[in-house]
């Protein structure tokens, strides 16, 4: 029961932060609220026992993206332009899709249900064999680094490529770089 209230409170906080972030017209407060949103999601991941995901969310979502947004903010005006377009259609689409997603979520298995399809595939193999294959207690690292080594290699190359892409876009012409700062 306590868990229900904690999760409910966290989801409520998420909703409040999201609404305030959309409403706010100051770019800086929107950026900070986005960071707070990530931090609350990280807490939800902890309560779901997904510490590795929570760690990543806190470090990347709440920490680095906020800093990168602040760095990018220098090139933006301080306040958002207020647009008064007709947003009725967008609201209807969001509501319909939201209702569909909630409806679909009734078919999902219970959280932690061992008979759920996702726990019947390769999961049991990893759980029984990580200790004997690698002798390390963190299953997530075992799966990421060894069983799914190819995927992680691809992931690393993707990050590297993203860095190269930004370097080529923003870093090529030496003349539009601020060398004195």
């Amino acid at each position: 029961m306590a868990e229900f209230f904690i999760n409910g409170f966290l989801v409520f906080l998420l909703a409040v932060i999201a609404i305030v972030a959309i409403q706010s017209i100051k770019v800086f407060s929107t950026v900070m609220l986005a960071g707070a949103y990530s931090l609350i999601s990280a807490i939800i991941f902890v309560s779901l026992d997904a510490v590795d995901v929570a760690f990543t969310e806190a470090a990347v979502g709440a920490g680095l993206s906020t800093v990168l947004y602040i760095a990018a903010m220098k090139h933006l005006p301080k306040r958002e332009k207020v647009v008064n377009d007709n947003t009725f259609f967008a609201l209807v689409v969001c509501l319909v899709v939201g209702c569909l997603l909630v409806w679909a979520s009734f078919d999902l298995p219970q959280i932690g249900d061992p008979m759920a399809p996702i726990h019947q595939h390769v999961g049991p193999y990893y759980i029984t064999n990580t200790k004997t294959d690698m002798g390390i207690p963190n299953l997530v690292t075992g799966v990421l680094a060894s069983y799914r080594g190819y995927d992680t290699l691809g992931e690393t190359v993707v990050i590297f490529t993203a860095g190269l892409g930004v370097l080529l876009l923003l870093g090529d012409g030496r003349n539009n770089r601020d060398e004195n700062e």
Partner: protein
Amino acid sequence: MNDDPILRVCTKIIVGPIILFGLYVQFHGDYGPGGGFQAGVIVAAGFILHSLIFGLKEGRKLVSEKINLIIMILGVLLYGGVGLISLYFDTEYLNYSILAHEAKHGQHIGILLIEFGVGLTVAGVMLILFHLFSSWKGDSK
């Protein structure tokens, strides 16, 4: 660049522990939560904090753009290179079991090495992203 003495002193105190914590997350990733990706982000965050407070120029004195690029590239090469070692010893690509006399030990070494590669690349990319975004003057030319 920030002249507030409180921020400057606090930054000086806290940057070291942040990087140390990053290294802990890096090399303790097989036993606790964490791993190369998170560690890279944390180490980069330490350097970014330094650049935020003491200015980009000071930050580039610490890690020049060239070294930053080399770190990025080294990470991917280390990861791919470990795979090549497995190929050389006639096993599957990225099969770490041959890295030591005992398969379990080899796996452990392999995981440490590739996680370090991931950490290097992530830290390098995050740092270069920050520096590029902050030093970009816009396309007003």
